[in-house]
């Protein structure tokens, strides 16, 4: 697209074309995320209402309150911009955007369909883990810069919680990476193509349990109930978000929903086949790359809708969990992490590794060949190019 647009300009103004196209692509991704956030906010209030035996929003935009999120957005933008007197001005203003930036950057590396990814890296999983851990910076800065005790306590608890849960999260994520042999999410998705028994969650009992540990750690990572302590309304006023109102608060809120969606999409790709459905519908009706570029595009479109549906389902389960379970205390949160999640994740990692060793055909044989008598392993040529090695 960029070259097409650039052909309309003189060669020294090519950069305008490239910049415009870059902005358009970034804008499309941003639009997807923000629309998702708006839908999730509505879904949360509706599901919360139904679980609590009431209706939820039902006035704005018809019987189901479709436009409630839009009304909320307009209200939040129109609110007065309050900055506390004791607050550090620059840090207070910039902290929500840091959180949002971290949550949004995760989508740089998540493939929506086979090959449809903004930035294809062969360290995609590692990148996502790294960037998801940056959200805590925005929170800590917000808590400190608010100049209020409640905010500081909430921020410290949040930082302790998120940083602690990064460890079992990383261990859980390593298990599907080990099974597939690559950190490239496109490769991991491709390895699960076919019927639903190809999904990594059904690969062996260890990956099955790993998914549940991953889900628990992901809930803690995005500060959802039952790990809600840092923003608990009944405990710390609103934790680190106490002094934020109006548009800045909505940016924090969007960051939270964005990271929920990102973590659900990541779980879908790692464990539930990503864009490959339970039944290989696209190949069954002939939407494969073999039949031409248009059918490949349509097949990928179907895959993308599949992945987004799985992400939505994940978010729905998170919302459902939030309104059904009680909140854990901060010491219970950290106990769960250190005494239950980490040993369980480490045991699953060990188990998955032994399973792969016992039933070979996996990663190691791609790189080294051991002779049957047990001689010294010799390195074989590394697969180059788009093999994602």
């Amino acid at each position, binding site marked *: 697209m960029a070259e097409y647009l650039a052909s309309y300009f003189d060669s*020294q103004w090519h950069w305008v074309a490239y910049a415009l196209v870059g902005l358009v692509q970034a804008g499309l991704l941003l639009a997807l995320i923000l629309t998702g956030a708006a839908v999730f906010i509505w879904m949360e209030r509706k599901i919360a209402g139904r679980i609590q035996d009431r209706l939820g929003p039902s006035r704005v935009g018809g019987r189901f309150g479709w436009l409630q999120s839009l009304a909320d957005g307009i209200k939040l933008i129109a609110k007065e911009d309050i900055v506390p007197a004791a607050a550090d001005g620059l840090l207070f203003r910039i902290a929500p955007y840091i959180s949002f930036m971290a949550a949004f950057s995760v989508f740089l590396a998540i493939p929506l369909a086979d090959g449809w990814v903004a930035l294809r890296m*062969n360290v995609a999983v*590692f990148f996502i883990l790294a960037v998801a851990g940056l959200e805590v910076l925005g929170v800590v800065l917000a808590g400190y810069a608010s100049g209020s005790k409640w905010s500081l306590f909430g921020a410290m608890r949040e930082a302790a919680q998120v940083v602690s849960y990064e460890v079992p999260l990383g261990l859980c994520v390593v298990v599907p990476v080990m099974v597939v042999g690559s950190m490239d999410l496109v490769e991991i998705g491709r390895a699960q193509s076919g019927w639903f028994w190809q999904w990594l969650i059904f690969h062996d009992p260890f990956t099955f349990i790993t998914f549940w540990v991953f889900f628990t750690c992901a809930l803690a990572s995005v500060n959802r109930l039952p790990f809600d302590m840092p923003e608990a309304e009944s405990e710390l006023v609103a934790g680190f978000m106490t002094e934020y109102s109006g548009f800045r608060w909505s940016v924090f809120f969007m960051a939270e929903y964005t990271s929920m969606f990102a973590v659900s999409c990541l779980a879908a790709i790692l464990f539930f086949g990503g864009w490959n459905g339970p039944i290989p519908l696209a190949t069954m009706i002939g939407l494969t790359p073999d039949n031409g570029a248009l059918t490949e595009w349509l097949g990928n479109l179907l895959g993308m809708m599949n992945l987004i549906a799985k992400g939505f389902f994940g978010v729905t389960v998170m919302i459902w969990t939030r309104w059904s379970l009680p909140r854990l205390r901060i010491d219970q949160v950290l106990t769960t992490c250190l005494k239950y999640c980490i040993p369980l994740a480490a045991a699953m990692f060990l188990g998955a590794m032994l399973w792969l060793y016992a039933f070979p055909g996996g990663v190691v044989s791609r*790189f080294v060949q051991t002779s049957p008598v047990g001689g010294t392993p010799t390195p074989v*040529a590394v697969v180059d190019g788009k093999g994602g090695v």
Partner: protein
Amino acid sequence: METAAINWHSFFFLLFALVACTFAVAMLLSSNIVRMAFYLVISLGAVSGLFFLAGADFVGALQLMIYVGGTVVVLIFGVMLTARAPFLRMRTGVAQWALAAIVGGCLLAVLLQAALSVDEWAPPSMVGENPPVSNTYTAAPLGLGVLGVRVDQLDEEDATLRNGMSGYLLPFEIVSIHLLVVLIGAAYLARTKRRPKEPTGDRQETVEPMISSGK
């Protein structure tokens, strides 16, 4: 009239380099400790971007995760545990600043002279319109290198150098033990020490509460 197109790699290099250097100097000149930590975060994030631009994907992601996501959080924790209002701003004397500036300036001059004078390090020339392409699939070779198998040096003639002598297995093991020692040591060093108990005086026996807390 320039007819050369913008090299986007160079543009982003310039952007990240300016951000990294500016915020490093801002960190140097600031006296508010939390602002210093914030500027350090941005500077290290820009350095991570520079790593990505040099083709070192894995090291860039490692920098983001460990430095920006870990070390700086630790620093901010340290700041919050030790920051009290009178100590938030500690100013150094002018004489010390002048001395440090002179020495720093000389060091910078020496380093710049060394950086710009070696021919081998000069920028490569463009081949036609296309910038050079390089292999950024570094994760697996790095991992295997750490295990002792150098798959990036397959054309090395010496068999011992190819198979393990130039691998990094020993440093990897040493670093693992080192990290364990550091973890235990740092936790021990920074533990809360019990203060000697002061006499509590008369402690009134509380009346039995009507509703038990059910702990």
